């Protein structure tokens, strides 16, 4: 398996903090994004990513290298985020303030084409899905993991991952139409 982090992994496993810093540098954007998409709060996402890295550092000696290191880090981050949500109680409702935090990709709405506006709107709609669907979508589309790697990351059967992705796609299509999807995904 060709892992770009491979040169750093062995050194980090041996306790080299500089090698681990390189791993953090290479993966922080993706891990922060994953945490943010799940918890939808920038400060909480930042805290959770730090927690995830700390756990990864402690558990690194037991990392067997059967999966890519990044996949393993996604798993630790997802678990940290979902555990935090469980501790806080299930929070799936999204308020306007949180939606407003969704990053804008262009200078002004006027500069967008209609298609781009529709895309931006859809990215915001993702925030209305329950967190497990957001996690699956993030891992598949943004982290560009395969179905198998998403299943391994979330410790779910492959069929469940495919079904959740399909349900999320359908739900987003309904949301574009202006339909309510709460019953469908609960």
């Amino acid at each position: 398996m060709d892992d770009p982090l491979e040169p750093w992994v062995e050194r980090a496993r041996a306790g080299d903090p500089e090698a681990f810093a390189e791993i953090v540098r290479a993966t922080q954007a993706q891990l922060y994004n994953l945490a943010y998409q799940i918890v939808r709060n920038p400060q909480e996402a930042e805290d959770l990513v730090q927690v995830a890295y700390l756990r990864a550092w402690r558990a690194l000696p037991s990392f067997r290298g059967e999966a890519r290191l990044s996949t393993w880090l996604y798993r630790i981050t997802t678990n940290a985020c979902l555990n935090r949500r469980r501790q806080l109680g299930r929070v799936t409702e999204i308020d306007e303030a949180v939606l407003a935090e969704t990053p804008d990709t262009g200078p002004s709405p006027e500069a967008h084409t209609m298609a781009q506006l529709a895309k931006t709107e859809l990215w915001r709609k993702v925030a209305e899905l329950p967190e497990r669907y957001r996690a699956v979508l993030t891992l598949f589309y943004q982290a560009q993991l395969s179905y198998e790697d998403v299943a391994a990351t979330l410790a779910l059967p492959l069929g469940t991952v495919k079904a959740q992705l399909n349900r999320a796609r359908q739900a987003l299509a309904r949301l574009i139409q202006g339909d309510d999807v709460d019953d469908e995904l609960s």
Partner: protein
Amino acid sequence: MTSCREYEEQLISLAVLGEPVGAEFAPLRAHLATCPACRAELARLRQVEAALHTWPLAELPRDLVPLVMEQLAQEPQQLPSWQLLPWRLWVPALAIALAVGLCLARNLVGRVLPVGTPPPTAVLYQPLGAEGRELFWAIWFGLFFTLAGVGISVGLMSEGEGFDRFTSGLRDRWEHLRESAHL
């Protein structure tokens, strides 16, 4: 008549994969030709797919490396959880434990089966006498303990700067094990 719901899965596949040409999609294509609702759903699913493929990452508010490294600096030394001692120490230590175990077992067997008891079946060798056996075991244990002692000494020397480092290493390992247990 086939309902639209039966085509839901294939509709998603069509939107995700582009234009599948398999024969299994022929009924769906025929259905789409006559169903405006499914055509609209397909258009929406394609829109979703296109948007998700260009979904940008949330912007990282700041570089997390210094924050993570600061926390790491407060962590006890990272060591493999299974490794209580380095191999240079645990191999000779295991040898000593084995030697002691053999010694105890030997004494135990000696009591259960008194020395001099003839073997139950015919043997093709001449067994040692009682004195010869004692001498054999004495040499065996002496060799064992000497080699284990040499191994431990070499291990301690190659560990680094003497006994302090050795004890501090043990302490770190103990802390690490306690930390792992908490996780």
